């Protein structure tokens, strides 16, 4: 540091630190691989690691062949997947579940990050602003009332419902954001709106048939346990383009961190950009809420951890790193939820809260100390 001050050399000007970024990415990939393997191995039925690898290898090989030949190996693939009880557990339960946890965890982190960019405050997130509760409310209404008209509810319908709920609550919060300029007040409003949505959801539950409520209760606990390959495909289809979309916005996001005034003076069309941010964030959090129920604190804690790891707020670094960090975090939390009190399963939100909330408290305390809120 001292030396740089005395001898300012262009080479030493820090315009991002790619070395650190790739180190963090490698670390995250390593951790993801590790947690994924742990997840595949550990469970009520223990499978020998060697078998896991051989089954994985067979499965992967057949799957690739199947994709390359456009369905030519479908029979072999099915055979590998249903060869034994163990392979069935592996291919129909554990692998889809952990893939879903990874994708949705990553999506949730990026969604939180986008909200933080939008509100220019690191404590914003889909859960604290009541957006998850809004999504839950609309999904609840769908599960209880609309189910009679629609017959059955597909995951895609749930995602649409959650997306509408997210957008609804986001617009309510935005309306308030125009009136109150203090972030703490906005958070309080978010929490209150969350309670109102919770109340509406409870109200619906009270007047619903028991049979419908079971669905809702299971879902609203927040869990990855219902994961199927269809869910994984849907999540990947929506979340990966969503995250790539966020990545494509990294240049305006970076300029936006200087505030709206500067952003506009640099040539950003601020209004469409803001709409795009909110739409992307809502889409990602809606996917998560619809497929796994409300999951708390990932959206705030993970981007913060990511920034601290990277020691940079450069969006081109933070977005991909936050995605993988969120994936690791959720796969890890799901592992705990699934195994610690087995055979009883914890709600995923319970575990993420235990790990996520302290991070948020730490951030708020540090923020109070360092600067005006």
């Amino acid at each position, binding site marked *: 540091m001292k030396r740089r*001050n005395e001898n*300012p050399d*262009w080479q030493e000007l820090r*315009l991002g630190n790619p070395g650190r970024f790739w180190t963090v990415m490698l670390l995250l990939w390593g951790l993801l691989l590790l947690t994924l393997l742990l997840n595949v191995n550990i469970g009520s039925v223990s499978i020998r690691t060697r078998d896991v690898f051989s089954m994985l290898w067979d499965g992967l090989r057949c799957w690739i062949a199947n994709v390359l030949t456009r369905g030519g190996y479908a029979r072999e693939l099915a055979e590998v997947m249903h060869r034994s009880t163990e392979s069935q557990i592996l291919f129909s339960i554990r692998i889809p579940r952990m893939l879903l946890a990874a994708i949705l965890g990553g999506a949730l982190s990026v969604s939180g990050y986008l909200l933080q960019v939008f509100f220019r405050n690191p404590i914003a997130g889909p859960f604290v602003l009541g957006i998850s509760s809004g999504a839950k409310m609309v999904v609840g209404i769908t599960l209880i009332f609309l189910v009679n008209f629609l017959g059955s509810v597909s995951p895609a319908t749930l995602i649409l419902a959650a997306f509408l709920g997210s957008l609804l609550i986001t617009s309510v919060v935005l309306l308030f954001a125009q009136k109150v300029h203090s972030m703490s007040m906005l958070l309080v409003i978010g929490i209150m709106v969350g309670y109102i949505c919770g109340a509406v959801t409870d109200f619906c539950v009270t007047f619903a048939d028991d049979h419908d409520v079971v669905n809702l209760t299971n879902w609203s606990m927040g869990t990855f346990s219902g994961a199927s390959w269809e869910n994984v495909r849907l999540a990947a289809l929506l979340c990966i383009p969503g995250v790539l979309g966020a990545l494509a916005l990294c240049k305006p996001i970076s*300029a936006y*961190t*200087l*505030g709206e005034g500067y952003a506009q003076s640099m040539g950003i069309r601020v209004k469409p950009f803001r709409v795009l941010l909110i739409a992307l964030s809502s889409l990602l959090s809606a996917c998560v809420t619809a497929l796994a129920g409300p999951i708390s604190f990932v959206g705030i804690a993970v981007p913060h951890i990511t920034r601290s790891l990277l020691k940079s*707020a450069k969006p081109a670094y933070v977005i991909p790193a936050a995605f993988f960090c969120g994936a690791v975090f959720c796969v890890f939390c799901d592992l705990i939820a699934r195994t610690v009190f087995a055979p009883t399963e914890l709600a995923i939100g319970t575990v993420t809260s235990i790990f996520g909330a302290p991070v948020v408290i730490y951030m708020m305390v540090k923020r109070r100390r360092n600067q005006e809120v």
Partner: protein
Amino acid sequence: MEPYFKTEAMAVGYDGHILIHDINIRLEKGKILTLIGPNGAGKSTILKSITRHLETISGKVFVGGQSLQQWQPKELAKQVAVVLTDRIRPELTTCAEVVAMGRYPYTNLFGHLTELDKAAVREALERVHALDLAGQDFATLSDGQRQRILLARALCQEPEVIVLDEPTAYLDIRYKMELLDILREMAQQKQLTVILSLHEIDLAMKISDYLLCVKGETIEAFGTPEEVLQNHAIEQLYGMESGSYNLLFGSVELSKPEGAPKVFVIAGGGCGIPVYRALQKKGIPFATGILFDNDVDFQVAQVLASSVVSTPAFEEITDGQYQQAAKLLLKCASVVDAGTPIGTRNLKNHQLLQLAREEKLPIYPVAKG
């Protein structure tokens, strides 16, 4: 010469409510325009309107021959850059990164910085003498440093016009001078057109080619500092009810002590000013003389003394003026000898002192050195 920047009958305000109308500015390339005026007069509103942060209510703004509406946002960003009053706090961002954001209109979809862009960042940092801050976290800077980095960011945008809203607020005198020096340099060397608002009238006079006085519903005055600032322009512009502003010195004096003079100050050649100010602080009304009207003391005496005996510059002091001074002196309870050097032209001041001694008036000499 066709102005590079101009406004035609521009009206600005919020929510369709007109605050100031008929703003006509014409500014050639490489000139500096300063907006002065009291707080809340609408300086920021005008600046925001010419940077498109606020839509004008009527009238037009032209930059480089095109109206603001005709410019594509990204192309306009290559013409106009800003330094705002917004207090920004990007987290974990180095100064070099903040400056590099100025390259926004030039970089590709992902904001990749080419060698050319990096050279521009470096040049901008050098311009504001902040190359040593490049690697520092922006959040840890002092106000002065922060303002320099934000100026570097604006320069890095390579604009033709730069708009600065109160860039010297929060800065101490050294950083103020530095900042304005950089702007002057850029205007001269790079033909950069500068539009800024300032609270410091003295600095505004010195840096600006044009001044725009903002007060009330229309523009009070627009022109060169010499045209705009005449007589009591500043007192009127700011609605000063007490005190005065000296245009020649660019300095202020507090209000004149009221009442009949109690002290007579024999002054001249600059010795009087500290005495006048000391008396003003104590609230003692005084008379002073005999001053030549080109004397520095005369400038301050005019606004602080109850009465001043003066004579045109380079003329002998007449007996009439001496009598006038003597009359005032005899009415006073005491005399202060400010220690003015006595030469052939102001011997009469020596006579005044003698008169005071004869009349046994208490005489307070001002210690020298």
